[in-house]
């Protein structure tokens, strides 16, 4: 897509720990169009959170970006100097973290946590910034009086809404949401998801939505990418995802979700456990657990298009 908002090319991240380097993200490429919701799903250890932090360059030692580029609106974020990097953070890329309780500064009132980011990027006075904060609160359904409270005085749902409001403070083009509703109960999760969909339709920002819950993604995302062993193994439109999923791991994952209205067929899940990131197996990481595995799988399968806007990295499902 020529006019992609975010274009990630061949991005790799390594953890230089005590027992050798672990490649948490391995030559990942994907794009996000303006206003689009790209879902990124995978199990723990697949590298999705590392990828989320790599894009705005928030990774800290021992994590190191070893290759690739991250273009936002044409400019490569990895090349920016510190000052320009800071200027695009939050104004163009904002983030919502999994546990808002830890993401909000416990000793600072909510109001100042809105005001400091608004004033840093817009130079508005404190009063004007607090007015903007009040607007944002009403936008996400929080009583503006709450701006005077501290994070521990808010309920779980309210904290997550506040984090969402702060993320939208500067009307960013892209919001990266790393498991934003995983810590919430299912009813509260539904409310926050509807909140996000409504805000997106109104403000038109793009979302990189990261979660382990594929059924949630199928409802909210436009396209879904599946990560395994630090790589994207499949990417397809959300609408037809259930029927069109081709990669053995994706199919295995979909077969691991019991549903509300199934006819009681037995599910199998996926035997074995995720690959070691320290000395990753040659070729396809899923070969050890894959029923279709063959000698060919010792070479890394290409990430080929098997249908319009539908790509997968597997020899068995290739063209």
């Amino acid at each position, binding site marked *: 897509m020529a006019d992609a908002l975010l274009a990630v090319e061949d991005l790799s991240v390594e953890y230089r720990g005590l027992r050798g380097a672990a490649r948490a993200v391995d030559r990942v490429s994907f794009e996000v169009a303006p206003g689009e919701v790209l879902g990124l799903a995978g199990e723990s250890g697949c590298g999705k959170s590392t990828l989320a932090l790599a894009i705005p360059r928030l990774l800290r030692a021992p994590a190191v970006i070893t290759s690739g580029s991250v273009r936002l609106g044409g400019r490569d974020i990895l090349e920016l100097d510190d000052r320009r990097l800071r200027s695009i953070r939050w104004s163009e890329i904002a983030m919502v973290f999994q546990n808002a309780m830890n993401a909000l500064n416990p000793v600072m009132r909510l109001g100042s946590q809105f005001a*400091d980011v608004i004033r840093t990027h817009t130079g508005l006075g404190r009063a004007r910034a607090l007015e903007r904060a009040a607007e944002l609160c009403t936008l996400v359904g929080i009583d503006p009086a709450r701006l005077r409270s501290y994070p*521990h005085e808010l309920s779980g749902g309210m904290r997550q809404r506040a984090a969402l409001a702060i993320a939208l403070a500067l009307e960013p083009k892209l919001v990266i949401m790393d498991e934003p509703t995983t810590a919430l109960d299912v009813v509260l999760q539904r409310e926050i998801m509807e909140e996000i969909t409504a805000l997106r339709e109104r403000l038109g920002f793009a979302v990189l939505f990261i979660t382990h819950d594929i059924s949630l993604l199928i409802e909210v995302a436009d396209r879904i990418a599946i990560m395994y062993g630090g790589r994207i193994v499949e990417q397809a439109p959300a609408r037809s995802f259930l029927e069109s999923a081709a990669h053995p791991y994706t199919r295995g994952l979909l077969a691991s979700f019991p549903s509300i209205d199934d006819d009681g067929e037995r599910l199998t899940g996926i035997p074995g456990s995720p690959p070691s990131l320290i000395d990753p197996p040659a070729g396809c990481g899923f070969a050890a657990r894959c029923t279709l595995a063959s000698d060919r799988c010792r070479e890394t399968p290409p990430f080929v298009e098997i249908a319009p806007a539908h790509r997968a990295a597997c020899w068995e499902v290739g063209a």
Partner: protein
Amino acid sequence: MSRLPRRVLFYLAAGAVAVTLNFFLPRLMPGDPATTLVATYSGQLTAEDLQALRDAYGLVDAPLWQQFATYLSHLFRGELGVSLSQFPTPVTEVIGTGFGWSLLLGLVSVLLSFAIGSVIGAVAAWRRGSRFDSIAPPVALFAGSFPYFFMALLALYLFAVQWQLLPLGQAYGFDVEPGLNAAFAADVLAHLVLPAGTVVLVSIGGWVLNMRNTMIGVLDEDYLLMAEAKGLSTPRVVGSYAARNAILPTFTLLGLSIGNVFAGQLLTEVVFSYPGLGYQLYQAVTTHDYPLMQALFLLITVSILVVNLLVDVAYVLLDPRVR
């Protein structure tokens, strides 16, 4: 403010324990406290003085609780008894300026070691894994485990005896006229360098380790990540996000060490014969001046309780979650 009343009650209880302990201290001595007291000073004291002494300490042969009652009544009237070694001057007079000197030496050494130690600790945490971070903590720990009085003796020997750069002890020279003038202040400062310097050297290690461990904890928190993601300026991130949270546990430790100023400094005051409460306690112990000893012990304990209470009050202001 639910936590504060409970803390005030605790300090009152601790105060009561200290007072009772103080009452029983002389009764710890083998044999009857009165006779031992009398024996040590029988030469210099007349019969009525001895009797006055007995009354002063409720050491009359009344039942214990009655003795305790008279002891308490004296206490509340501020009469801590009469010093034996400098009979008959009341103890409060003997103590006199000791409190001030202890406070001066204490505050200077604690605040200095806190400031320097915390900065080194914060830098070590911020540049985790660097060479600096692998050297600073063990060196700090090694210096911290040095026996203080040996280091003080060594410093005294080198700086005062061998190179004669600094005064040998006392709080100020005899040739200087005490008063609010520059000369006197300069002289006090000169006398302060060695005692305070040695305390700082020994206690700086503790602060380095404390701030480093606290900072490492804080730097791993999500709100630090969010602060950086918000593109806030580094001073803002370090100041109101990292330091503002790291200060909390450090503050309680600061409170404890200020409290210890009155107690821990005893060795410093003895080695440098610095006329604080600690030095006076040492003199009282060596001259078996029990009334002075008890009064000093009580004063030191009460000062520590007061300081800790102040720290608790301040802590409540610092941490909204505790309010």
